[in-house]
């Protein structure tokens, strides 16, 4: 945070009227403007990882949460981990729900990279418990809830877990082969899968954003979809909330944007989120990017024992 020296130690300046603002104040004492919430725009970077989460224009708070971790385990090499959650706006404190889920899941995933399938399932359970605990603090009609998606890349193997309609895409650098690795727990997906509606009709239906599974006290018993895939080409893995995929038409569209961005995970995340904002997306938007280099890269080889 920039703190103009003229305003004294620790004081910031109001983004609206430029008056000095005490660091503890949430609102400017001069013009009343709410100070930007640190979560309004989150940018994270780690080794071969980058993530951007943006409040967008419709919501008062950024109800999406994102976390990234880069860890090296003792034997098989290093792992890249991300968790992305989208708070359900109809519930209480969706911003707390998504953050609690991300924090709890990351704690589990960083300690279980030797068996990503097992640790991904454990991470979903931990995230679920963390969200349920929020609702026991303040009983309300609609308890806090959120979606969940995690991706763990170890070597050339990706393990993804999802609950709800947040997604992971695999976007290889070469043309073709871009595809989602997750399946939505959503009314739209189920309507199409069961053949009751065509894809175009489902996409226009007012229920298109309704999800059929989530984390929270009022959720159905957990049945996370966990998938492990082999990545045989250089590319990027993108974990995102519906704010991103609402406006970007399918994996090829995304792959094109990635190809046009600098070869850097944070730059790619910025490009994706920026494009969604440019296309007038109103919702919170989050994209986390894991860079998967060409197979020859040394760091993907097992460490010498």
């Amino acid at each position, binding site marked *: 945070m920039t703190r103009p020296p003229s305003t004294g130690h620790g004081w910031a300046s109001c983004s*609206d*009227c430029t008056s000095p603002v*005490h660091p*503890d*104040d*949430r*609102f*400017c*004492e*001069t*013009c*009343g*403007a*709410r100070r930007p919430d640190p979560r309004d725009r989150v940018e994270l970077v780690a080794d071969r990882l980058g993530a951007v989460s943006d*409040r967008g*224009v*419709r919501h*008062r708070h950024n109800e999406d949460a994102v976390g990234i971790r880069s860890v090296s385990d003792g034997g098989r090499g290093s792992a890249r981990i991300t968790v992305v959650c989208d708070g359900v*706006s*109809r*519930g*209480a*404190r*969706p911003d707390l729900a998504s953050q609690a889920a991300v924090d709890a899941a990351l704690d589990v995933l960083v300690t279980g990279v030797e068996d990503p399938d097992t640790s991904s399932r454990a991470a979903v359970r931990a995230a679920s418990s963390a969200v349920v605990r929020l609702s026991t603090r*303040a009983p*309300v*009609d*609609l308890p806090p809830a959120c979606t969940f998606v995690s991706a763990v890349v170890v070597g050339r193997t990706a393990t993804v877990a999802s609950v709800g309609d947040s997604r992971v895409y695999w976007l290889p650098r070469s043309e073709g082969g871009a595809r989602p690795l997750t399946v939505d727990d959503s009314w739209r997906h189920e309507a199409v899968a069961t053949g009751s509606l065509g894809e175009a009709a489902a996409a226009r239906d007012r229920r298109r954003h309704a999800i059929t599974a989530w984390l929270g006290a009022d959720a159905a018993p957990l049945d996370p979809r966990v998938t492990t895939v082999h990545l045989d080409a250089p590319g990027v893995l993108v974990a995102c909330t519906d704010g991103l995929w609402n406006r970007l038409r399918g994996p090829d569209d995304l792959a094109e944007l990635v190809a046009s961005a600098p070869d850097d995970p944070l730059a790619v995340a910025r490009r994706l989120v920026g494009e969604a904002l440019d296309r007038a997306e*109103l919702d919170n938007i989050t994209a986390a990017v894991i860079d998967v280099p060409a197979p020859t890269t040394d760091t993907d080889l097992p460490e010498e024992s």
Partner: protein
Amino acid sequence: MTTPSPTPAAAPSPTVVEQEAADRLVLRGRVHQTLHLARDAEEVHAIVSVDAEGAGTAVPDDTPEAAEVIVIDTSTSTTHPAGTDRAIAEAATAAVREMRDGVHFAVLAGTDVVRRVWPTDGGLVPADATSRAQAISALEVTKVGGGTRIGRWLRAAGELLADHPGAIRHTILLTDGRNEHEERATLDLAIEDTKDVMNCDCRGVGDLWRFDELHAVSSAMHGTTRRVADASGLAEDFREMMAASMAKEVPEVALRLWTPVGARVRLVSQSAPEAVDLTARRTDVDEQVGLYPTGAWGGEQRDFHLAIDVPSGHPGQTRHAARVDFVRIWPDDSTTTLDQQFLRRLPTGGEDGKDQAWITATWTDDPDIDTGRAEQVQRAETENRIAEKIRAAMSAVGRGPAAEAEAEDLLRVAREWAVGIGQDELVRQIDELFDPETDTYRPGGPSRAQALDLEIITTWRPVQTRDTEG
């Protein structure tokens, strides 16, 4: 820190007892507002409803000092109808009987001049068995004769009460006639000079007094104006007024308002139960903070309506339009913050509690988001419009057929609105003089008494429904 700046000075403590008295009142409030404004909109409205809980008689040894002056009309007019003068004296007697031990009191008789009924000279006297008996004896031999100069009565009461700074200071003023021996400007000046010294309840006996005169007194002094149909009901009414006054626990409370630089305060009013516009009564603390007097408080419920123009923001931006809390005003004009908490419903369904009422604005372009006024605000605004229509209609009583026809139309509209917001008692009272089938006055037209009653009821409004959740 998010307290209104400047941070209130440390509590001055003239005596230990007074300092403790500040803690006798605990406020719980709620903010009713819609959180969003359309692009370029600047006007923010909110109702702040406050429930005050007093310590009551839980700590009888710690009751705050109280000072009470009773002013009774002894002008010549009180001999008509016969016995009115006696009933007035008996009502004062009932009030004296109700006086708690230790309350400093006096009884004054008002005509063109002010006569001391009890005590006959000196300042206020503490109530005890002896002083109450002496005051009651003095009331038995009250003489009648002379004019009506209410401004002088107020000044006399104010002079006696000025010697008791920091006490709960209250005057009961009773008259049966118009302020006919004094210019209105003289009365207004007397109100101005005494309004900071005391709270005052007014009672009009019969139907020859003027609502606007007594209401000017009571609204400036945080009290009520009521009509007493005949003198026989006075004793009970006086007992109730005394009890209400004795139940006050903090003598002077002000609404403290913080607004952003560049904001304009359109309205600060107590919207219920007694409607009082406080907008013009601001005392500046600084450019952004002002105090609005609300009189003495005990355990009670009140609602306040605020309307603030703030510089508009861009869509997605949130701004504090105002922050409100309540402070005790001490005799040296210093302030201490009362114990208070305000709840606000969040758009996500949760609630947050703060020691100030936060009134915010978030601008939006989204047509699906409600940017209108909160239901509670709309209700308060409707009540104001109803009161305007009724007062305009009643001021036309006795002014000829053209004015009456216009008045009937005003009443028709007022009645429609009152029905719309479920003000059943007001509708019932309108229907006593107005026939909704024909939209005309009932045969014979409204009597003076009916007109007074209708004007009075516009000053009283039910407080907003309290949310019992949580």
